[in-house]
């Protein structure tokens, strides 16, 4: 599992009065104000991955990735082929649990792509469930467009990034 460690660093505390006066005399604006500054503190978010996970039994899936069309989350015949072997491996070894991470290409908004990545992961999960794998062995998440594997702004890269990875 994952632990979260939060370190707090640096502290700028500013305590300043805030006064704002507006009065008008013979059509002229007269104002007095004081600059306000509330201060800022930096936070460090760090994750520690637990190394006790049994990667060996899962190695079989390391490269199980299926791909999708733009704005789509249906599985094509090539994907089904890939998933078929993953299903049989899971049936052979009841102890294997998997995580499916859905991804999107960079086009469109980040939040919509996060939702789209989730739909892709769910579509893969549905396939496992339909083939008799217990839902307790399959978890899903999405990274949207935040973790591309190809960086170009072209269809070739986009196609590589519209994917669901099974680990």
């Amino acid at each position, binding site marked *: 599992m994952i632990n979260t460690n939060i370190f707090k*660093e640096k502290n700028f505390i500013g305590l300043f009065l805030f006064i704002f006066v507006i009065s008008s005399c013979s059509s002229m604006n007269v104002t007095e104000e004081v600059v306000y500054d509330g201060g800022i503190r930096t936070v460090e978010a760090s994750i520690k991955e637990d190394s006790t996970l049994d990667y060996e039994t899962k190695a079989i899936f390391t490269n199980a990735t299926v791909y999708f069309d733009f704005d789509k989350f249906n599985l094509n015949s090539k994907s089904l082929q890939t998933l078929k072997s993953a299903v049989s491996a899971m049936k052979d070894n009841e102890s294997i649990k998997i995580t499916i991470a859905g991804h999107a290409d960079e086009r469109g908004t980040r939040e*919509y792509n996060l939702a789209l990545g989730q739909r892709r992961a769910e579509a893969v999960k549905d396939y496992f469930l339909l083939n008799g794998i217990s839902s307790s062995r399959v978890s899903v998440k999405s990274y*949207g467009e935040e973790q591309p594997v190809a960086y170009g702004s072209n269809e070739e890269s986009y196609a590589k990034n519209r994917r669901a990875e099974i680990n």
Partner: protein
Amino acid sequence: MKKQLFILLLMMQSISSELMLEITKGSDDPYSVAILNFSGSEDVSRTIQGVIINDLKRTGEFRVLEENQLLSSPSAEDEINYDDFKLLNIDYIVMASIIEEDANNLYASYKIFSVKKKLQIRTSKVFGIPNKLRQLAHYMSDGIYEEITGIKGVASTRLLYVTEEIFNEESSFKLIVADADGLNEQILLRSTEPIISPSWSPDSKKVAYVSFETGVAKVFIQDIASGEREMVLENNFQISSPSWSPNGKFLSLTLYQDGNAEIYILNLKNKNLTRLTNHYSIDTESSWSPNGSKIMFTSGRSGSPQLYEINLRKFNSKPTRITFDGNYNAKGSYLPNGEGIIFVHRKDRSFQIALKYFNENFVRPLTNSKLDESPSISPNGNVIVYAISEDGVSLLSGVTLSGARFRLPLKNGEVREPSWSGFLR
């Protein structure tokens, strides 16, 4: 250990890259303002004057003339020969002095004169904070802007955004707050995992954002001054897209608890959740209307992403579709006056920022590059900041409703997901 970290942190901050300002196009009919040399100690006055000139130019609504471009250089009201300024088509004259009483007490006094009326129209004082000359200058800029345009200025407001830098193939993400001119950057959060969708609380004292630090998307709220933060809901599901209600009491969110993106409203006080949408397609990117009566969101229910509104004042109100132009309209937000929306609009193969007024039946494109996203509007409703992608690198760009354009590129790495604060002054 802690001390070493602190020193490292200071070093990192001083070498951290700054956003550079570059104005690409200005308004067609700007106000002309003469800024006379500020009196006071040379370096302090010059710094402040430079910041103000930059602030005014960035609005795209001003033509700024300095003393070497003028026919005369009066240093007091009774020395002004208005005809000298009229000849150069100047509308307003700004005179200022910076008074340093001692190391900790500094204030600015400025006056604005109308060339047309041939009289002084404003006299103001701004009391500064030690070592914060730029902030003092931004306050003066906003006073000048407000006096001349009649609209509150945004030079003293702030931007929130995310940067990503890659060292040795490892990404480093930062949530950063900076002044509206992109300077005075300060780090709110540093993480090895992505950060998206930052947004300000209505009082601009807190921020909400999505962090992947636990392995899945989760929404956090962080107090800017204290650094205290909390995960808004602790469960096993992905949570995303936070948006604050105008009164600061609720947060609308996208929850994925039944495997699909649905919008909920979280009461921040008692943590009660109210479900807002219920559809098998994607519903996300909620945002509140300025008076809190409506929520707009992106939904895929028509077969492509489109914007919908839900009336919160009517019980069981059904979502109403509000965009029909094109096959991709997403991430909408309301103009501060509630008269229209800005959003991401796909035109042909490009994703652009567009504006639609409710009383018009057409979409106004505001930008013209390929992959524009994450538009955020200034609290005075005049400027939109958004992210663009250039040669595969994202940077921030801005457009004013008067037609001026500017960009805020980062020297190293990527900068994206801008969010404009409310008024701080």
